[in-house]
C-alpha cells in the first residue's frame, strides 16, 4: 500500500448546513470519505464553516477522526468568496489528498472557484468513488448526457476535488468515541466582496429529500387546477407516511406553478423516498436521474410510450384526472 495513516493522508469532508441545521448530505459525504479511508488508510477529517457553531462541531466529532471548525463572523452566512478562501486556507494547511463536497447549489458555486485557486480539476455530481489500486489516483463516476450514461474520470493531481450527488451514499453511522475539535481561524477581509447580497427572499422552505413519500407533477398536470387534484392524494398518503410532499418536474417549475425547491431531477433535488408517484411526467432522463434511489415508483401517464414507465414499478396508462380521484377514494376505504 502506497498510502498509510502516517502519510498524512487526509480525506476532507465539507459539512453542509442550512441555517442552524446540519443537512443529511453531510453524513453521506462522511460515509464516502470513510470508504476511501478504509480503502487506502488515512484520516477522515471534516470541516465546518460558520460563526459560533460549537454544538455542530461536537455533533460531527462522532463521525470523523478530526473536526476542523472554521470560525469567523464573515462565515456566518454562505458567501462564495469567503467560503472558497477559508477552504483554500484550510487546504494549504492540511494538505488533504481528497476533498469531498455535496453537489448542492452553494457548492456548485464554490467548487470551481476552489479548483481554480488550488490549481486542480474538479469532477462534479459523482455517484461513485474509488482509489485506483496501484497509483491511489481517484476514479470518479458521474451521470452524463442528462443521466443517459455513466462516465468515469480519473483525477491524478492532488488534492482530488469532487462534489457528490445527494442520496448516492448511505449515511454514516456514529461511533461511540468522540474526536477532537480543532479551531482554525481563516484570514478574511470584508473588502473582498464584489457581489453584495442585499436581501434574502425565502419562498418556501421545504426539504423534499426528507419526505418518505412524494407525489410529483409534470407537464401533463398542466395548471393550478390540476395540482389541486393532487392535494387529496398527498393528504391521504399522510396516514401511511410520516412526511408526504408535492414534487414537480422542470416544466411546472419554469412555468412558476411550483417553487423551485420542489423540483426533482438533474437541476433540482435528488430524492430517495419509500414511494414516488409520478403524475403526468413523461420521464426525461434529466428527471429520472433524480428519483433512481426511490424504493417504489408509480407512474400515471396517458402516453403508453412515456419513458417514465421504464423506470417505474407500477404503471397506469390513463388520464390522471380520472385515475387520481378513484385512487384517493379507494385509499380512504382501505384505511
Amino acid at each position: 500500500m502506497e498510502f498509510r495513516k502516517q502519510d498524512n493522508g487526509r480525506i476532507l469532508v465539507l459539512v453542509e448546513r442550512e441555517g442552524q441545521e446540519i443537512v443529511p448530505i453531510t453524513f453521506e459525504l462522511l460515509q464516502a470519505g470513510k470508504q476511501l479511508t478504509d480503502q487506502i488508510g488515512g484520516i477522515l477529517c471534516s470541516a465546518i464553516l460558520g460563526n459560533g457553531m460549537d454544538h455542530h462541531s461536537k455533533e460531527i466529532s462522532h463521525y470523523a477522526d478530526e473536526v476542523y471548525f472554521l470560525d469567523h463572523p464573515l462565515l456566518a452566512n454562505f458567501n462564495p468568496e469567503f467560503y472558497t478562501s477559508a477552504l483554500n486556507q484550510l487546504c494549504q494547511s492540511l494538505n488533504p489528498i481528497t476533498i469531498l463536497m455535496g453537489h448542492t447549489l452553494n457548492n456548485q458555486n464554490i467548487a470551481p472557484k476552489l479548483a481554480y485557486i488550488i490549481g486542480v480539476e474538479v469532477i462534479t455530481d459523482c455517484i461513485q468513488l474509488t482509489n485506483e489500486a496501484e497509483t491511489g489516483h481517484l476514479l470518479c463516476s458521474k451521470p452524463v448526457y442528462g443521466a443517459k450514461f455513466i462516465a468515469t474520470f480519473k483525477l491524478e493531481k492532488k488534492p482530488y476535488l469532487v462534489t457528490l450527488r445527494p442520496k448516492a451514499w448511505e449515511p454514516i453511522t456514529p461511533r461511540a468515541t468522540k474526536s477532537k475539535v480543532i479551531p482554525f481561524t481563516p484570514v478574511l477581509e470584508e473588502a473582498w466582496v464584489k457581489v453584495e447580497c442585499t436581501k434574502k427572499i425565502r419562498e418556501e422552505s421545504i426539504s423534499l429529500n426528507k419526505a418518505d413519500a412524494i407525489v410529483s407533477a409534470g407537464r401533463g398536470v398542466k395548471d393550478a387546477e390540476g395540482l389541486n387534484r393532487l392535494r387529496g392524494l398527498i393528504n391521504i398518503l399522510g396516514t401511511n407516511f410520516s412526511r408526504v410532499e408535492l414534487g414537480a418536474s422542470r416544466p411546472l417549475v419554469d412555468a412558476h406553478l411550483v417553487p423551485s425547491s420542489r423540483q426533482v431531477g438533474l437541476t433540482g433535488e435528488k430524492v430517495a423516498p419509500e414511494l414516488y408517484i409520478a403524475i403526468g411526467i413523461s420521464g426525461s432522463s434529466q428527471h429520472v436521474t433524480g428519483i433512481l434511489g426511490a424504493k417504489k415508483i408509480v407512474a400515471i401517464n396517458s402516453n403508453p410510450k412515456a419513458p417514465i414507465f421504464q423506470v417505474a414499478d407500477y404503471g397506469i396508462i390513463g388520464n390522471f384526472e380520472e385515475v387520481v380521484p378513484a385512487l384517493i377514494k379507494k385509499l380512504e376505504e382501505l384505511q
Partner: protein
Amino acid sequence: MKPLQIMVCIKQVPDPEGPADAFKIDSEAKKVIPIGIPPVINPFDENALEAAFHIKDTYGAKVTAMSMGEKLAQPVLRKALAAGADELILIVDHYFKELDSYSTAYVLSKAIRKIGAYDLILTGRQAGDWDFGVTGLLIAEMLQIPSINLAKKIEIRDDEIWVEKLTRDGYELVKAPIPTLITVSSEVGELRYISIRALQSVSAKPITVYRADDLDLDIKRLRARQILNLSAFQGQRECRFIEGDSHQQKGENLALKLREDRVI
C-alpha cells in the same frame, strides 16, 4: 449610457432531449455517438441567450454569441443570430477537440479578452452533455471578474447589475459591478420562438471565425477530457401495468395492489 456589451457563451451539443436510443456508446473510443439527431445549442445556454435578449429588449445592448469547438455546425449556431444576437463568433480549430472544462474556459476567456470591451458575460448553468457546470465560473476566475451563479432574473440599475440568485429555499437579491459573469438558470425562461423566416434572414449574415492562432493561447495548456470508462445507465425496472375497464377502475386497482404489496 452607452449600450451594454453582452457576451453569451453557447455550446453545441447533441440534443439532450433526444430519445435514449438515439445515443450509442463507442466504448473503445469512450465516446457518445448521436444517431439521427442533429446537434443543438445547449438548452441551458439557450436560457442564457434569452436572458441576454431580455436585457437587450429592456435597456438596449449589443449581444455577441460565441461558441468554441473542433467542428461547429453553422446552421445550428446561427439560431442565436435569428433570435436576436448582433454578432456570432465561432472559435474553431482542431486543437479544440473535446477539451475539458478548464481548457474550454481558458480558450473562451482568451477569446473574450481579444474581443475586448464587455459589461456582462452570460453562460448556461451547465452543458447538456457532460453536465459539469463549472466552465462559466472558471471563465470569471481567469478574467478576474466577479461571478454570480444561477441567476433567475437579471436587471441593470444605475450601472449596477442586480440579480435574483437561486438559493435552496428561494433567492437572494445580489448586486454586482460591471463587468460580471453570470450563469443563468432555467427560471429565466426558454429561448424565444424563432420563425423559419427569421432563420432564413440570417443565413447569409457574416460570422467571425477565430482560429487558435488568432488568440493569445498556449496550446500546450489544452487538454482533452480524459474519460476512463463510459457505460449505459442502468435504472430500468420491471413495470407492472395496472389494468381495469375504466381509468377509475385502474385507480382503484392501483390502491389495492399497493396495499397487497405492502407499499402502503
